[in-house]
C-alpha cells in the first residue's frame, strides 16, 4: 500500500467514524436521558428502576452522571440545548431550579398518593422525592462494644473518653447541623436554631472544640476507608455507604441512629421544556412506586421514600433502617431549611473553607 492509498483509507475511516458518531448521537435522542449521581447509587437505580421500566414500557433510558452542578442544568435551559429530560436533584437544587424556571412545575399530588411520601416531606413544586439518604454517627463495633460504644454526638465530641480522630465531610451542610445536635439542640429544632442570629456562630464554635481531631473527607468512599483502616475512631457516614462497606468487607460498622441524624432528600424532576415530558413523568411515577423503591432499598441499603415500600423490605434490611428513631432525624428539606441555605450557603461555604484551611 503506498502513501496515497494509505491516506485514502485513513480519510474514509475518519469519515465513517464521524458518521457513526453522528448517527449514534441521533439514535440516542430517541431515548429518555436521565441524570443522577452515578456510582453505586446510579448502578442501583439502573438495576432497580431503569431496566424494569424499559422492559415494561419499551422506553429506552440513557443515564448520565453529575455532581449536582446546577450550572449544567442552567446551561441547557438558557441555551435551549436540552441534553437531559429528567434529573435527580437534591432539595436545595430542586427549590432553586424550580424558582428559576429550570425545572418543570408539576403537581405530583394529582399523579401519586401524597400520603405515602409524607414522612419525607411530601412533594416539591417541581420534584418528587425518590431517595432518602440519612447520615449519622458511625463507629466500628469491633473496636467499641457494649458500654464502650458511643451513644450520642456528645460522645463524638468527647476526645478524652474516646481518643482518636473524627471523620467529617468537607462541606458545611450536615456538619453544622451535627455540631448543633452535639451542643444539645434537638434534631428537629436544628433548622430553626441554625437560621436564628448566632446559630451559625454557635455551630462553628462547637466545631472549633474538636478541630485538631477532625479529618475532613471528600467522598463517601473515603469516609468508609477511614473507618475501615481505623484511621479515625468514629465518623459521620451515610447509611448506604455503611451498608456497602459492611457487606463487601465483612465488617461491623454501626450507625448510632438514636444520637440523631440528618436525612437528605433527593428528588426527581423534569427538565423545563423537555420534549419527552410525558415519558419522563411516567418514569418518575415508576421510580416512586412501592416495588422499585423496595428493590432499590435492598440494593443500596437506603430507606425507601415511599412508605408503603417498607412492608416489602427484607427482615434484615428493615432492621437496619432508622424506623424506630424517626423523631431523631433532621430532614434536610422544608422551607425554613431550604431558605436558610439558599440565602446563606455561599457565605457559609466561604467561611467554612477558611475555617477548615486554618
Amino acid at each position, binding site marked *: 500500500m503506498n502513501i496515497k492509498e494509505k491516506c485514502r483509507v485513513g480519510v474514509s475511516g475518519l469519515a465513517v467514524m464521524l458518521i457513526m458518531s453522528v448517527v449514534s448521537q441521533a439514535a440516542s435522542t430517541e431515548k429518555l436521558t436521565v441524570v443522577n449521581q452515578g456510582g453505586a447509587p446510579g448502578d442501583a437505580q439502573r438495576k432497580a428502576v431503569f431496566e424494569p421500566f424499559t422492559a415494561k414500557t419499551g422506553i429506552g433510558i440513557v443515564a448520565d452522571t453529575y455532581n449536582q452542578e446546577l*450550572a449544567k442544568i*442552567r446551561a441547557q435551559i438558557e441555551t435551549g440545548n436540552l441534553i437531559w429530560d429528567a434529573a435527580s436533584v437534591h432539595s436545595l437544587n430542586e427549590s432553586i431550579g424550580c424558582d428559576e424556571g429550570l425545572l418543570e412545575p408539576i403537581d405530583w399530588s394529582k399523579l401519586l398518593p401524597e400520603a405515602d411520601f409524607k414522612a419525607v416531606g411530601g412533594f416539591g413544586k417541581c420534584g418528587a422525592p425518590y431517595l432518602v439518604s440519612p447520615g449519622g454517627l458511625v463507629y466500628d463495633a469491633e473496636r467499641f462494644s457494649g458500654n464502650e460504644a458511643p451513644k450520642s454526638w456528645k460522645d463524638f465530641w468527647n476526645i478524652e473518653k474516646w481518643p482518636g480522630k473524627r471523620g467529617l465531610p468537607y462541606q458545611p451542610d450536615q456538619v453544622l447541623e451535627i455540631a448543633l445536635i452535639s451542643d444539645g439542640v434537638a434534631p428537629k429544632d436544628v433548622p430553626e436554631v441554625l437560621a436564628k442570629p448566632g446559630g451559625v456562630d454557635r455551630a462553628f464554635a462547637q466545631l472549633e472544640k474538636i478541630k485538631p481531631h477532625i479529618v475532613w473527607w471528600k467522598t463517601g468512599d473515603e469516609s468508609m476507608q477511614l473507618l475501615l483502616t481505623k484511621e479515625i475512631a468514629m465518623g459521620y457516614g451515610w447509611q448506604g455507604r455503611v451498608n456497602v462497606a459492611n457487606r463487601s468487607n465483612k465488617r461491623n460498622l454501626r450507625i448510632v441512629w438514636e444520637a440523631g441524624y440528618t436525612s437528605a432528600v433527593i428528588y426527581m424532576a423534569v427538565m423545563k421544556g423537555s420534549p419527552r415530558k410525558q415519558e419522563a413523568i411516567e418514569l418518575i411515577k415508576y421510580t416512586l412506586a412501592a416495588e422499585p423503591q423496595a428493590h432499590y432499598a435492598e440494593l443500596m441499603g437506603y430507606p425507601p421514600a415511599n412508605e408503603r415500600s417498607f412492608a416489602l423490605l427484607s427482615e434484615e434490611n428493615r432492621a437496619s433502617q432508622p424506623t424506630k428513631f424517626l423523631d431523631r432525624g433532621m430532614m434536610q428539606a422544608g422551607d425554613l431549611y431550604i431558605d436558610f441555605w439558599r440565602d446563606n450557603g*455561599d*457565605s457559609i461555604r466561604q467561611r467554612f*473553607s477558611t475555617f477548615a*484551611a486554618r
Partner: protein
Amino acid sequence: MQASLEMMGETEIPKMGLRTLVRRAERRHFMTMLALMAPSVIFVALLFVIPILLFLFRSVDNAEIPTLLPKTAVALDTWRDGEIPGEPVFAALASDLHALKGSPDAALLGRRLNFAVPGYRRLITRTVTSLPGTQMASAKETLAAIDKSWLDPVYWRTLKSQSGRITDFYLLSALDLQRGAGGIEKVSGEQAIFMSLYGRTLYTAFGVTALCLLIGYPVAAVMAAARPAVANWLLSLVLIPFWTSLLVRTTAWVVLLQTEGLVNKVLLQLGVISEPLKLMFNTAGVFIAMVHVLLPYMILPVYSVMKGISPVHLRAAASLGANPATVFRTVYLPLTIPGVAAGCTLVFVLSLGFYVTPALVGGPGDQMIGYFIAYFTNSAVNWGLASALGVFLLLLIGVIYLALGKLVGFDKLKVR
C-alpha cells in the same frame, strides 16, 4: 511563484516593466500565504480569543440588575448613601418588582443580589410575592410593611452600586474587598478566602518549580554528559511520563499514596515507619504528584541547552587552574541560564493553572485558583466571580511571561 513568473515573462515583460511584475507576483505570493494562514488565525481568534475575552468580560458585566430594575436604577441616581430614599425611588422599585411577578427573573435577581448581601434573595422573593398591585398610597409604607429591611440603607447601597452596566463587584470580591458605607473596605476575616488562595497558589507553584529545578538540573547535566546512545535511553525514560496521560499518572499516585497504598505498605514492611503516613489529601501528596507531572518540562529545555554547550570552554577554564566549583559557577551555570529560565517559566506557569491533580490527590487546604474557577462555574453558579478569578490568574501568568519571557522567547516553548 517563480514558475509562473517565468511563464509570463516571455510575453508580458516588455509591456509592464520588471519591477511591477515582481511586485505583483510578490503580492500574489503573499496573498496565497495569507490564505494558508487564514483558517488557523480565524479559528484561534473565533474559538479561543473571543471566548476568553467574553469570559473575562463577565467579571465586570452587570446586565441583570439594570435590565430587571430599569426604573429603580434611574431613580437611585440622585440618592445619597446613608439616608432612606424617598417615595419616588420606592415607587420605582415597587413597579419594577411588580413586573417580575410570576417570572423566573425574580429568582435570578434575588440570586444576583444575594451574592452581595446574604438574605437579599429572600427579601426580593418575599417582596415580589406580597406586592398587592401597582396602585398603592405610599410605596414606601407598603414595602416597609412587607419587610423592614427596606428601611436599611445597606440594601439600597448594594442596589445603587450594582445598578450600572459595569460592576467592580466581582473583581473586588476576588480581592476580598467590598463596597461599604465608607467606600472600598476589606471583608470580614471569616469571608476572606481569596488572598490566601493566591498566596497558596503562588507558594505551590514556587515550591514545585524549585523542586523541579533542584531535581531536574543535575539529571539534565548527567544526560547531557552521557554517551549519545545512553543519552537517548535516558531521554526516552524522561519522555515516558511526558507522553503518558496526566490522568493515568495522577491515578497511579492515588493508588500509591493512599493510606493503604503501596508506598505506605513498603515503608511499613521495611520498618522505616511504624504507622502509615498520611500522603494523600494533603500538601505532601500534591507536591509529590505535581513534581512528577512537571519534572520533564524542566529537564527537557535544560537538557537541550546543556547539550549545546561546548566542552572546550570548560576544559579551557579547568586548564587555567579553576576548580570544578568555580568552573561550574562562572562558566557552566551562566551558559545554562536560558534553559533554566525556559524550564522555570514552563513549570511555574503550568503549575499556576493546575486543577485535576490537586483535585484528586489534594486535601481541602491544597486547592488552587483553578479549582475555585471550576467550583464557581459549576457548583456555586457565580460566573462573575469565576471570571474575576480567571482575570487574576491570567494577570499572574502574564506578569511571569513578561518577566521571564524576555529571557526565553516564545519559540523556546516547544516541548509538549
